[in-house]
């Protein structure tokens, strides 16, 4: 018999989002809904060690939470009529467990409402991330704090404030419709991808990858893809995350050194995740033109399909960056396009694009531009210019180790 507390944790992870979402539909406040759900969890922690885990733990938790809500309303000193009505409505919704399966679609709708509320634009990005992980990912405050290397009290505060903001702004518990849907959905995707990236290339801390966060983001993405299967960008994002995750095991050498994509041992790529990524990409493509996530996934797919680095279809990658740059123009995308062009058509083609970027103000202090440019100049035999670029890059980076590397490379070019 496994540890009962670990079992309750597991049940919580499986049921909490559905529980909170179902309660939020009734009480119309995700803060109150989460409190009720927590009460039900406390009741489970008290009773299950004695009684054992019930056969249908999800229905048990929902019933416990609803009873708690009814008690609360009834006992409330205010005894407003509105509350009486709510209490009655709650009682009428105490379905027996065998009806639970019949309301599957309703569960999906509730979850989707919860997703959109947790990622509502009235909240700061940080608040959206914390709330999403907490309400949908089933993570504890402590787990979120650990993942983002923030003090637990800070995260707890952030969540409390977020719930208050939602209540004060009277954010309706609903799925946006019409033209608003696209904008709101992209906010949801952004939150999920942000969580993923924090795991994939951590911005802080000792570990530069945190696979657990990647897994949380992937799980959220997979759930969302089933909730809104007609939205191609959801599949695009899932494809991108599956494909990037497939390389996690190859990105670090046994000695802990990062390994560049083209140097990675492709045998270490997770073929199952690649297969899942390509399938998700097909689902995205089947719905029409790819969006920004879909295009990035298509680029990742070019790498995934190449059995060796030399087989990489750079012409296609350059074309995809071209499309990406039209959809979401940015100097960083341009720089990537330049690198792809240089791989497809030779250093001169890439250099032309990079030269145009030299006057880009936002890249003025961006050490990656001179680093990449130096590479192309060196390949063209223009060693003096290459050296100057490497030295410039060295002066721009704030990382001492990186500066050393750049200067060593510059010195290696002779002169």
């Amino acid at each position, binding site marked *: 018999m*496994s*540890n009962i507390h*670990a*079992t309750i*944790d*597991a*049940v919580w*992870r*499986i049921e909490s989002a559905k529980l909170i979402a179902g309660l939020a539909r009734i009480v119309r406040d995700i803060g109150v809904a989460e409190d009720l759900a927590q009460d039900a969890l406390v009741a489970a922690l008290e009773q299950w060690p004695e009684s054992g885990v019930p056969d249908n*733990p999800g229905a048990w938790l929902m019933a416990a939470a609803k009873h708690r809500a009814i008690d609360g309303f009834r006992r409330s000193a205010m005894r407003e009529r509105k509350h009486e009505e709510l209490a009655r409505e709650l009682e009428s919704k105490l379905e027996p467990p065998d009806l639970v*399966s019949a309301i599957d679609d309703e569960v*999906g709708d509730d979850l989707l409402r919860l997703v959109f509320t947790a990622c509502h634009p009235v909240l700061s990005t940080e608040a959206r991330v914390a709330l999403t992980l907490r309400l949908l990912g089933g993570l504890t405050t402590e787990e979120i704090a650990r993942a983002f290397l923030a003090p637990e009290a800070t995260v707890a505060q952030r969540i409390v404030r977020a719930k208050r903001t939602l209540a004060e702004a009277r954010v309706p518990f609903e799925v946006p419709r019409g033209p608003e849907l696209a904008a709101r959905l992209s906010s949801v995707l952004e939150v999920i991808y942000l969580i993923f990236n924090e795991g994939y*290339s951590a*911005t802080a*801390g000792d*570990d*530069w*990858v945190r*696979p657990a966060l990647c*897994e949380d983001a992937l*799980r*959220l*993405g*997979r*759930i969302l893809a*089933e909730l809104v299967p007609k939205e191609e960008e959801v599949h695009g994002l899932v494809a991108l995350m599956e494909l990037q995750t497939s390389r*996690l*095991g190859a990105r*670090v050498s*046994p*000695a*802990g*050194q*990062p*390994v*560049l*994509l*083209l140097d*990675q041992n492709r045998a270490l790529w997770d073929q*199952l995740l690649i297969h*899942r990524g390509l399938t998700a990409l097909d689902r995205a493509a089947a719905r029409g033109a790819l969006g920004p996530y879909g295009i990035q996934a298509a680029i990742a797919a070019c*790498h995934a399909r190449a059995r060796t680095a030399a087989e990489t279809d*750079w012409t296609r*990658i350059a074309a995809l*960056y071209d499309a990406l740059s039209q959809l979401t123009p940015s100097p*960083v995308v341009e*720089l*990537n396009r330049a*690198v*792809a062009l240089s*791989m497809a058509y030779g250093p001169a083609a890439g250099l032309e694009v990079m030269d145009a970027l030299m006057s880009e103000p936002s890249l003025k202090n961006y*050490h*990656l531009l001179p*680093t990449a440019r130096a590479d192309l100049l060196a390949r063209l035999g223009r060693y003096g210019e290459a050296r100057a670029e490497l030295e410039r890059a060295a002066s721009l*980076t*704030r*990382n*001492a*180790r*990186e500066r050393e590397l750049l200067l060593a490379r510059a010195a290696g070019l002779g002169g």
Partner: protein
Amino acid sequence: MKFMILVKATKDSEAGVMPSEELLTAMGKYNEELVKAGVMLAGEGLHPSSKGARVRFSGSQRTVIDGPFAETKELIAGFWLFQVKSKEEAIEWVKRCPNPMLEDSEIEIRQVFTADDFGDALTPELREQEERLREQTEGKQG
């Protein structure tokens, strides 16, 4: 964490008895639930061992043995691959599975090895910044 969920064979499954429509429907629903929860990575059912074979290794020797194989309860009739946070979560999901067989049956839960199990090789230094350098420059992306 990844877990392999192994559905053990029974006399019926080894005899090639196909599951009832009712069971197929229940299984389909269960699979759908797994997918909706983002838990299921893969899953397949297997033909009886009479259509399989074994390769036995002894030093450099290889001997091929055709199915069927005797020890029915040790054989596998199907599998899933779950991505979950704990063994308990895998157990909870498996408890929700309809009995996969028409007779008494058993499902075994086994953890899959991952890089993490080979120690803390993913360690630090100021690698992270250097990594991002590659990250943003495609063609060198890690």
